[in-house]
């Protein structure tokens, strides 16, 4: 019985929805009210540029068999982009958290470099560079506006893309 209770306590605390619920929620907020009315916080142009880069990442990722909703990817090669220090405490914690997750994935990919084809490695490394450039862009946006929530969230999304890419690369069959 104690084993059963332990397993119940250890069940995953997070279960992501199959699709993003936010658009439907946001649409319904329009008819709701809160004190003070609503206002939008617009993205800085540099963040929009990063968003475009992420779209490129997603497109390239889907080309070599990535599955939406599944964790994947890391980045081994330094991008050469100099990232400014993080301004916001939350963004700093996000970066710290994901770097811990990414480290073993990077090592795993490095170990597999002899097993994967040159073409696959080229695609993976290129995507990692794109993500790193996008991360640097968002860091700059956050440095200019630490309260930019959309940039903060996009920062986390980019890191998650990196994790997914590396996880996927680590799962690819030898010879791919």
């Amino acid at each position, binding site marked *: *019985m104690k084993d*059963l*209770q332990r*397993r*119940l*306590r*250890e*069940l*995953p*605390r*997070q*279960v*992501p*929805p*199959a*699709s993003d*619920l*936010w658009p*439907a*929620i*946001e649409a*319904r*907020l329009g008819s*709701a*009210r*809160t*004190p*003070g*009315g*609503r*206002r*939008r*916080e617009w993205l800085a142009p540099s963040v929009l540029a990063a968003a475009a880069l992420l779209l490129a990442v997603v497109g390239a990722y889907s080309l070599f068999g990535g599955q939406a909703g*599944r*964790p994947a990817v890391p980045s081994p090669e330094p991008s050469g982009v100099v990232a400014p220090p993080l301004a916001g*405490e*939350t963004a700093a*914690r*996000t970066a*710290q*958290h*994901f770097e811990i*997750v990414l480290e073993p994935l990077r090592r795993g990919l490095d170990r597999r470099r002899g097993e994967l084809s040159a073409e696959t490695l080229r695609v993976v490394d290129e995507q990692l560079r794109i993500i790193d450039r996008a991360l640097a862009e968002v860091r700059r946006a956050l440095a200019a506006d630490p309260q930019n*929530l*959309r940039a*903060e*969230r996009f920062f*986390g999304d980019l890191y*998650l893309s990196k*994790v997914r890419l590396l*996880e996927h690369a680590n799962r690819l069959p030898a010879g791919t």
Partner: protein
Amino acid sequence: MKALEPTLLPEPAEVDLEPLVRRAAAGSVEAFEAIYRAQVGRVMAICLRLCGGRRSEAEDLAQETFVRAWQKLDLYRPGTEFAAWLRRLAINVVLSSRRSARRRWRREQSLAPARPAASDPSRSLDLERAIARLPAHQRHVLVLHDVEGMQHEEIARCLGIRPGTSKARLHRARARLKQEFAR
């Protein structure tokens, strides 16, 4: 019925919700979206388990939870734990939905007896399926007590039952799970 799938996502970094809640209460949709991003996994987990693993129903209820949270933000007392407030709201949304949906409830009762877990019971997916097969009144208490860590007094208030009834249902739910995995 679509069963729970354990998440492969890393646990998100802890987000300080208080400043976001203050901004959302002042009308910032952006701040509320950030709250949603930080909490949707937790809310979804609660809804999915209380619903017995029916994903589309759980997603509807998770969505309803966030809409009600937006509407009730001015009732949240700063200084108390917002995540716990949101969790309680999700539980209320699920339970009130189920109370008003008698037909769905009866259908669930008729589906409840199910085949035992087929494979390795040590896997959490099997455990999730076994939880989903429990009768709703036992599953609610088990999820709230053993997964969410709530006390019987609080569970009793949520479910409108006596604490002793909550304890009895928990005992039966655990015994049923244990019996299932012993087969």
